[in-house]
């Protein structure tokens, strides 16, 4: 147990799950997008939907999507800031079934037209879980540099990716594999101890059978 999870984090109130956790979901999604977000459809579920207004959940999510961290004093102003920046924000209800009570489903468009859909859960104490990316299960905390590779479900892709990481001296902290159906879309979620260099990501994006690469860098 890290004692700075007990004393800390420094955050904008009022709620570690509904404000700080929401900001973190937005922030991690912005990092995963890798470029400025111009349009965000924010669909809320459960307690995020029911009590989110009084907790500033909407403001916190939008702030995060603009790259603000949970301790950013501009969070209460984020909806106005988004408007000034010309970012289009739409709120709605999520139609997810049986999700975690504090869940946000984010449908995002980046400045180059890149699309990304993230389902994020706020677990309490500002810890979060990225539960889905583009509709496929993922499950990672955003506390490590994380590589998410969507590929066609064929033999050989896992070893390709791990070989690249070994070559770049990146140590794997945790690795998970998911797929929608046999031979269909598959996802690798790899949490790393070091940052993956940009050329490694570029190489992966071009590799055969790889549909999409999403990378969470923790560098500012």
């Amino acid at each position, binding site marked *: 147990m890290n*004692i700075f999870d*007990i*004393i800390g984090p420094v955050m904008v109130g*009022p709620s*570690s799950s509904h404000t700080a956790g929401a900001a973190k979901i937005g922030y991690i999604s912005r990092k995963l997008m890798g470029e400025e977000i111009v349009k965000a459809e924010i669909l809320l579920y459960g307690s995020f939907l029911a*009590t989110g*207004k*009084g907790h500033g959940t909407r403001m916190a999510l939008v702030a995060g999507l603009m790259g603000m961290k949970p301790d950013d004093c501009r969070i*209460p102003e984020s909806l106005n800031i988004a408007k000034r920046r010309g970012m289009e924000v739409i709120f709605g209800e999520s139609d997810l079934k049986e999700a975690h009570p504090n869940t946000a489903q984010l449908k995002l468009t980046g400045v180059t037209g890149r699309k990304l859909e993230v389902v994020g859960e706020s677990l309490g104490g500002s810890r979060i879980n990225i539960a889905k990316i583009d509709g496929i299960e993922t499950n990672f905390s955003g506390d490590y540099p994380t590589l998410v590779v969507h590929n066609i479900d064929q033999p050989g892709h896992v070893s390709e990716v791990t070989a690249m990481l070994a070559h770049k001296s990146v140590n794997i902290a945790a690795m998970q594999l998911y797929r929608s159906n046999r031979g269909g879309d598959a996802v690798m979620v790899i949490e790393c101890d070091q940052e993956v260099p940009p050329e490694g990501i570029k190489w992966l994006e071009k590799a055969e059978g790889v549909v999409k690469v999403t990378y969470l860098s923790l560098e500012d």
Partner: protein
Amino acid sequence: MIVYNTVEDIVRICRENNMLFWQVIMRADAQERMVSEDISFAAMREMYRAMKRADSEYDKNLKSPSGLSGGDGEKMRIFNSTGNNLCGAFMGLAMEKAIKMGESNACMKRIVAAPTAGACGVIPAVFLSYETCFNAPEDKMVEAMFITAGIGAVIAKNASIAGASGGCQAEIGSASSMAAAGLAYLQGGDAECIAHAMAFALKNMLGLTCDPVCGLVEVPCIKRNSAGAVNAISSAQMAMAGIRSAITPDEVIDSMRRIGNAMPSCLKETGEGGLAITPSAQRIKETLQ
């Protein structure tokens, strides 16, 4: 490698290695995160200073987004300054700072979760008031902050620090016991005294439910920060007087876990019981919608 899971572990490590309570917590942190003790100490100082900044940035004119809270900390300040303060300068100031921090949190200002955002006023209220009223050096305050963190870590491990799983005893109760332990140290208490200050404070908060109106961290949370601060001071004073808890500190924590588990879910942050379903709360709910 220093590992502790209970309050008794910490007291034993102090005794066997001739270390102070806070040093055990700091060394364990440095080892776990693989950083130097200087870095660990600097990080805790940063947290203490962030609490100070949050306290000084209180804005008496702010209202929370719901409109339910704001301005009460200023009322406390004015009342204290009229000389009608019932309970002395230190406790009066602690009550004022606790309410201010709770309001700052509700008004979306920057605070330090300690251990949670809802309970963020308790520890800074006691500590910042102590530093002012007793002219304590900042290093000493940071040492005491490690004690609060260590106690919080033990509670998190063996019970809970989340209202949703343990009720408010887990939030305000934990914060109060953490503050009591730190305060006992500031007053010169040894490891045993620190442990019993913690035990008193937590015992006094057992059974406290989490029943916030409209599910917002405002009513009753803000004023409970004041109660948590006052309880911490009274508990530290009992321990300093040499009074000892008949139930051991770790058994108090175990009791908190069992009570939290036995608590119905309508009293654990769901807004479906207790104060949250009173006619007054219903009226507030209607005006908010």
